């Protein structure tokens, strides 16, 4: 008879993979349980925590990033440890973790992008927005990427908030960018950018656009770019009009009004122009003689209602061509599989029941394995949406604990787990070490007159911490 973990002598040991919002909200909820002693070890493949809050949220949205102060508060709990620079599947595996933890929670987000599935998608000059975003935010894996900003015309496919982020960053002036923590390499490249026209392409109409009102308003207030909208494309079709009337959604009505207002604007003659288009889908990217993107073929769409009243884009037989030298597809992120963990390939998520990882064949929960955040429900929702999502998962974890359904680790001691990490990754980074990096980044920023100057390579981060790679014998 084994004692149920969760006491001061036998804490419930939980491993959380990933350190984005979902990971931190789950840790918070676990650590604040009364009458239960939980210790949390959080792992991230990067030396730096916070996932997309650091590597996704736009650099000109500094205020959003202050959520990390709440995460600092969670990390200050003595029962919390961070192991940065430790990758699940590379340094530690599921079989390793089973020996040290009662429960394992995957919160690895969505590490790649969805594709458009059209000819020419992989031509030179056509990129996923995910890579551009990671590049301007200083993600170490993408610092070497090159985007040809000598082009004058760029298209961003999709009208979600990520698409708006990408379009806005392309339109920002160097003066505006200086007020941000954009990665130095990106600042240098964007400073010399020759982009003049940026096209944001929505396949449906303004009522169905995924971007939110503050973001649409913001693009109307840029220092160096006019925003242009075609009146006929924001004139609502009868189906959208009916849906809007029936929904009684004031925020949505406001969004349509903002866009219709843009259609009435006269350009101020600013250097750059952001065109927001609706009811068009790219069908092909066409190359020049060198194999570079030169044009995009678009088809005009109309909206048709599905059985459930969802209004979908249906292609007509009208086409147009748009001259563009740079294309970013921003049609959604996508999760990637973790070694040894079931994965739903088509949906790009870990299939689960309220956070309990399911066996793909039996559809029954796998003991001791859980998931939260974008890898659980798909790449949708703002930072705060991950909180109720993670709370739901933690509730499932606590229910299973109460039923004694946990893993049976042979070494449930904190010191044993730390020894494993040290053996596998001598260059792991603790939370205290991250705080030193954070301090250094802020100092470097101050010197440069910027909010922060990020380290963008892992060796730079490690050497700033006085950690040097152990020479292999």
């Amino acid at each position, binding site marked *: 008879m084994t004692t149920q973990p969760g006491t001061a002598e036998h804490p419930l040991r939980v491993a959380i993979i990933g350190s984005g919002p979902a990971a931190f909200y789950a840790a918070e909820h676990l650590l604040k349980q009364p009458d239960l002693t939980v210790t949390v070890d959080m792992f991230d493949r990067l030396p730096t925590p916070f996932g997309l809050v650091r590597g996704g949220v736009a650099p000109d949205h500094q205020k959003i990033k202050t959520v990390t102060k709440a995460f600092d508060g969670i990390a200050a709990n003595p029962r919390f440890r961070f192991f940065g620079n430790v990758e699940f599947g590379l340094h530690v595996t599921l079989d390793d973790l089973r020996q040290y933890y009662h429960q394992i929670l995957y919160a690895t987000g969505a590490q790649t992008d969805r594709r458009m599935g059209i000819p020419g998608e992989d031509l030179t000059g056509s990129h996923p927005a995910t890579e551009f975003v990671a590049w301007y935010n200083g993600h170490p894996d993408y610092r070497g990427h090159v985007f040809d900003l000598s082009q004058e015309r760029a298209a961003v496919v999709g009208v979600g908030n990520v698409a708006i982020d990408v379009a806005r960053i392309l339109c920002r002036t160097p003066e505006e960018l200086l007020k941000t923590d954009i990665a130095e390499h990106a600042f240098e490249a964007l400073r010399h950018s020759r982009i003049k026209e940026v096209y944001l392409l929505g396949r449906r109409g303004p009522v169905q656009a995924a971007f939110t009102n503050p973001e649409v308003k913001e693009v109307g207030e840029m220092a160096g770019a006019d925003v242009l909208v075609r009146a006929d494309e924001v004139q609502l079709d009868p189906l959208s009009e009916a849906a809007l009337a029936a929904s009684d959604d004031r925020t949505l009505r406001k969004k349509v009004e903002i866009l219709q207002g843009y259609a009435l604007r006269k350009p101020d003659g600013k250097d750059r122009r952001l065109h927001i288009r609706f009811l068009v889908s790219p069908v092909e990217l066409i190359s020049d003689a060198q194999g570079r993107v030169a044009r995009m073929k678009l088809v005009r769409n109309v909206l048709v209602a599905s059985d459930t009243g*969802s209004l979908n884009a249906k292609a007509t037989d009208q086409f147009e061509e748009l001259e563009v030298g740079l294309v970013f597809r921003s049609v959604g992120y996508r999760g990637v599989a973790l070694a040894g963990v079931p994965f739903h390939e088509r949906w790009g998520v870990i299939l689960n029941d309220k956070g309990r990882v399911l066996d793909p064949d039996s559809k029954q929960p796998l003991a001791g394995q859980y998931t939260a955040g974008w890898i659980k429900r798909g790449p949708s929702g703002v930072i705060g949406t991950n909180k109720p999502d993670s709370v739901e998962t933690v509730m499932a974890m606590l229910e299973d604990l109460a039923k004694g359904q946990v893993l049976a680790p042979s070494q449930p001691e904190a010191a044993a787990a730390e020894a494993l990490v040290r053996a596998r990754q001598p260059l792991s980074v603790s939370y205290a070490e991250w705080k030193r990096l954070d301090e250094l980044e802020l100092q470097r920023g101050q010197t440069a007159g910027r909010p922060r100057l990020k380290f963008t390579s892992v060796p730079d981060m490690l050497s700033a911490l006085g950690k040097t790679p152990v020479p292999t014998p």
Partner: protein
Amino acid sequence: MKVQNILATKGSKVHTVLPDLPIREATALMVQHNIGALVIVDAAGALVGILSERDIVRAVARNQDVGEPVSRLMTRTVIAGSLQDDLSAVMRTMTEKRFRHLPVVDHGQLVGMVSIGDLVKAQLAQYQGEIETLVTQITQGGSQP
């Protein structure tokens, strides 16, 4: 948000039965699995109807023989959803047309079912999330020098 985001956290298990199953057994299944509706498929796996709690209440009220097959009771004109359907549109349609369970079909295959409860929960989580994000910005941002 799309229907797919909701299905991902529901394990995509759908309880299906054949049209000739007696109503009595169908009801027992619903009790056993604590579910509000069963999907009826034919031998080839195609969606032919749906049996909800409401249908059963109706059957009881008119003293229908529970030994009869579910095909006698099920709703045949089933509205099915797709993975890419917008949450807001689906909610509106279910409220207007007064049905509580929506089977979801992808490439001709039944891949899951969402209930109005699931949709309300997802929408609530979305609102909560937006508020949470705003609140942390105000409280954390306010403490900045």
